[in-house]
């Protein structure tokens, strides 16, 4: 079970990594800045699944990041199981969009 989930996550990550360089640069320079006053009442949902590798450290690091973001009151870390489920679907979605 665990292996399957992890593979799904890695595949999802691989699909994201194929975003063209031009799109990446654009994302970088525009910097998705979210209005902090709005965020005050509406925490930003963010997925922080366990980082890959490093034995259990990847999961430990993700837990600390989740706790920091949650404690700030400005972020809402989403349930990891729900995220992994959708990450597994991601490669199929991309594949159909590119026709490949």
């Amino acid at each position: 079970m665990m292996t399957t989930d992890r593979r799904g996550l890695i595949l999802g990550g691989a699909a994201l990594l194929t975003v063209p360089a031009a799109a990446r640069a654009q994302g970088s320079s525009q910097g998705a800045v979210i209005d902090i006053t709005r965020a005050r009442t509406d925490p930003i949902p963010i997925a922080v699944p366990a980082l890959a590798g490093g034995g259990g450290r990847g999961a430990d690091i993700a837990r600390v990041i989740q706790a920091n973001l949650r404690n700030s009151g400005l972020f809402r870390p989403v349930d990891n199981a729900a995220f992994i489920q959708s990450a597994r679907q991601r490669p199929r979605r991309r594949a159909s969009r590119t026709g490949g």
Partner: protein
Amino acid sequence: MIGANALVTGRVEDQGGRLRVEFRLWDVLPEQQIQGTAFTAPAAQWRRIAHLISDVIYERLLGEKGYFDTRIVYVAESGPRDRRTRRLAIMDQDGENNRFLTDGSFQVLSPRFHPNAQQIVFMSYFQNTPRVYLFDLNSGRSEVLGQFPGMTLSPRFSPDGRTVVLSYARNNDANIVAVDVGSRSQRQLTSGTGLDVSPCYNPDGTQIVFNSDRGGDQQLYVMDAGGGGARRISFGRGRYATPVWSPRGDLIAFTRISGGQFGIGVMRPDGSGERILSEGWGMEGPTFAPNGRVLAFYRESQARGARGEGYSARLSQIDITGFNERQIVTPTDATDPSWSPLLA
């Protein structure tokens, strides 16, 4: 649907005692990478890597600096109230990696960070003599900054770290003094009758906020950093104490005592826009996170018995909007926190 606007992915690599952590922050809907960064640190410092990544996420998504890669020093209190032990303690901002820096053989009061986050200035009554000490976090050693006639109170570094302001009391008067850390020379900044205490510089070091009873009861005043030009800024109900200037410069946080209730509040440096963020039986000593968005302070609960049964003192964090107050868990009672600047 993923149910998230942003996604963090990453990989940890163990490089023989050192960890290399590569992470990417994604904007989910356009599937665009916002940030990709790698951090390397000794394996034992994996929490710091997590805090550094948290700060990058915070800054990229909110447009202002984070505060997670920071520490808090405080006074760790234990023992019965009439024989209290007060130790200098330090922890990460989330309460982890707690360490006691002194052994409890002498009392520690009012620790404050140096702007380089490596030194702490504090008051102690070692051998019943009040002295101001500098504690170095790298060496674990303390040195005496100075011994002053009478009672010394509330030392605090200037933003450039070259000066410590404090107040010393003699003959029912307390005045603010600036001590040059290098030469140890002193310069008196206030004079006259009244207790002038708790000085704190603004971020560019040109002004000092302090509290004084020169007008009858304890109120907040702002003066020029060289002394002079003091003007009162607090005009609400009650007494005001422990002012601290936000690192962003836009607010001054304080303790207000009114009708037997304590409150932690903020106002603009000209005294306008006063807001009380939290109130209770006992709370005091606000300190700003380096981004000026969050305050830490301590909250006391009332003793039930004559010997102090049921008393506790705990650290809290609160957003400057007044929302999201939460306790920072410490192994002992905790008072008088001071938040470090960002470590990196």
